[in-house]
C-alpha cells in the first residue's frame, strides 16, 4: 500500500496548494504593500524549496551533498548580487 500511495508527494502537493492559497490571499485581503510583498516573497521561496525537494527529488540520490551545496551557493550568490546592486544603484547614493 505504501508504494501505491506516495505519502510524501501527496503531502507535498497539499502543502504547495496551501502556499498558493496564502499567496493568493494577498490579492483578496486589504493589506499594506510591504506586508503583501513579504508574504509573496516568503511563500515563493518555501514553494521553490518544496518543489525542489519533493517533486524534483533533491536529496534522494547519493550526491545529495553536492546538490545542496550547489543550491546554497546559487542562493547566496543571487542574494549577494541583488544586495550589491541595491547598494551600488540606490543605497550608495543615500550615504
Amino acid at each position: 500500500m505504501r508504494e501505491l500511495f506516495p505519502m510524501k508527494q501527496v503531502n507535498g502537493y497539499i502543502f504547495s496548494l496551501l502556499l498558493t492559497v496564502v499567496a493568493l490571499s494577498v490579492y483578496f485581503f486589504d493589506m499594506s504593500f510591504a506586508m503583501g510583498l513579504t508574504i509573496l516573497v516568503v511563500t515563493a521561496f518555501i514553494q521553490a524549496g518544496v518543489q525542489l525537494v519533493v517533486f524534483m527529488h533533491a536529496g534522494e540520490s547519493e550526491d545529495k551533498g553536492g546538490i545542496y551545496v550547489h543550491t546554497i551557493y546559487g542562493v547566496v550568490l543571487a542574494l549577494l548580487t541583488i544586495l550589491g546592486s541595491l547598494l551600488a544603484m540606490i543605497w550608495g547614493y543615500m550615504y
Partner: protein
Amino acid sequence: MDFFDRFTIPPHDDPMLYASIVAIGLVSIAIVFGVTYFKKWGYLWSEWLTTVDHKRIGIMYIISALLMLFRGGADAVMMRLQTAVPDNSFLDAQHYNEVFTTHGVVMIFFMAMAFIIGMMNFVVPLQIGARDVAFPRLNALSFWLYFAGAMLFNLSFVIGGSPDAGWTNYYPLAGTDFSEHVGVNYYNWALQISGIGTLMTGINFIATIMKMRAPGMTLMKMPMFTWSALITNLIIVFAFPVLTIALLMGTLDRQFFTNFFTTGDGGMDMMWANLFWIWGHPEVYILILPAFGIYSQIIATFSQRNLYGYKSMVASMVIISLLSFMVWVHHFFTMGQGAVANSIFSITTMAIAVPTGIKIFNWLLTMWKGKIRFTTPMMYSVAFIPLFTIGGVTGVMLAIASADYQYHNTMFLVAHFHNVIIPGVVFAMIAGLIYYWPKMFGFLLNERIGKWAFWNIVIGFCLSFFPMYITGLNGQARRMYTYSEASGFGPLSMVSFFGALLLAVGFALIVYNVYYSFRYAPRNVGDDPWNARSLEWATHNPVPEYNFAITPNVNSSEAFWDYKKNGHDLFKGGIKDIHMPNNSGWSIILAGIFFVFAFCFVFHVWVGVIIAFVGIISCLLYRSFEKDDGHHIHKEEIEETEKKFGGAE
C-alpha cells in the same frame, strides 16, 4: 535598392579598410578553393565538422582562438602604431573606436574564452579518466554556437559597420541616440549566441566532472586543472545568465524602443554598467582560474615535485569564486555612489589578493628544492609569477577607491589589466598548448624556436605595457586616438609600439614553430615525453578515440606518477567493448541557422528572422524525437590500436 543600403558600411576615407575587405574575400575564396582542390570536404565534414569527440572539439576551439588571437593582435598593433607618435593620422577617430572595440571583444570572448574552453575540452575528460564529456552532442553545439558568434562579429567589419562603443559597450553611448548604425546590434547578437554556447559548456563540464570521474577519484583526488575547470564552470553558470539578460535588454532598447538603459522615460543607463560588470568581474576569474590550473600542472611536472599545498589551492579557488561575485562595483567607483558603497567593494576587492597570494606562494614552494627543468612551458610559468604579481599589486592600487579617481580610465588601468591577462591567461594558454601538444598531435614543438618566441613575447610584453603605467599616471586617457606633442606621451608610446612589434614577432615565431616541427620533429616521442605526473599522460600520444583502453583505477591526484614510481596498478582487468557517441551534423546545422537568425535580427530583416526561428525549432524537435544509441568500438579493434602504439597491457 533601399533594402540593400543597410548592408553598406559607414563611409571611411580609408583605403586600408577596403584592402582588408578584399583580403577577407580572397582568404575565404582561397580556403574554399584549397579544400576543394585537395578533395578534403568529405574528410573535413565526417572527421571534424560533425565530430562530437571532446579532443577534436578542443582542438577546433584552440585553432579558432589562435585565429582570433591574430585578428585581435593585428588590431593591437594598429592601435599602437596610431599612437606611436603625437598627432598621427594613420587611423581616424571613428576607425580607432572600431578597432579598440573589436580588439577588446575579440580578445576576451573569442580568443581567451575559446582558448580556455578548448583546453578544458581537451584535458578534463583525460584527467578524470572519462571517455568523453557528459553531453557530447551539446558540446559540439557549444563550439559551433561560439564559432557562429565569432564569425558574425567579424562580419561586422565588412557588412554594415563594426561596433564602436568599446568592449564594455556602455549606455547611453551604445544606445540608438549615439550609435545609430548596426554595430552595437552586431555586438549584442554575436555575444548572445556565443554566450549561450558558453553557458551550455558550463553545465556540460559540471556534469562531466561531478559524474564521470574514474573509479577511486574522489573530489580531493582530482588533478588541479580539473579542480580549476570545475570552479570555472560553476562561475560560468552563475555569471553568464546575467550577460544574456543584459544583452537582451540592450537589444530590446535598440531594436524595439524600450527604455531599460535610456536616460529618459524611467530608463537607467548606469544599470547596464552594473549588469555588465556583475557578469564581467566573474568573467575575469573564469579566464584566470583555468590558467592557474595549467600553471599548477606545468610547475609540478617540471619541478619534479608534487604540487605544494593541494588543499589550500582548492580552498583558495573556492574563496576566489565566491569573492569574484562581490567586487564588481570597483569597475565604476567613479560613477557617483558614496563612500560607504565604494569602501565595501574596495575591501572585498583587496581581499581577493589573499587567496591569490596563497596560490603564488604554493607555486614558489612547489619549485623550492625541486629539480627544475627549464623547458618552454616552464619558462612561461616562471615568467608568469613575477609579472602577474606586478599586475596584482597594481590591481590592489586600483582597488583603493579614493585613489581610483586618479587612475580611472587612464592608461594605468590598461597597463594593469593587460599585465594580468597576458602573463596570466595568454602565457598559460601558450604554455599549455606547448605542454599538451604531444598529446594532441604526437610530436613535440621545437624547443629552440619556442624559447626565441618566449623571449620575444616576454620582452615585448614588458616594453608594451610598462610604459603605459607611467603615461597613465601622467594623465594619458585610454581610448584616445591621438594626443598632442606637448603632452609628452610621445617617446613612451613609441616604446610601446616597439613592444607590440616584438610581441607580433613572438607570435609569428610560434606559428613558424608549428610549421617547422610539423615537418622536421621526430614522431617517436613516446607516451610520456615530459616525465609528467597526472592521469592524462597515462594514455597514448596522440590520444586514441576512446581515450583509455581500460578505465583507470585512481588512488591519488598524481595517479600516473604513482603508477610509474610506486607500483600502483592503474589498469585492472581486460579490454572490453567501448560504447561511444555517434557523430552528427545536427550541431553545425543548428548553429548555422542561429547565425542566419542573428544576422537577420541585426538588420531588422524580419522575414529571415521568422524563417530562421522556425528552423531552430524544427532542429530542436528533430533532436527530441531522434533515436541515436551511439556505437561500440569492439575489443579486437581496440587491441589492434593498442598494439600499434606498442602499449599492449
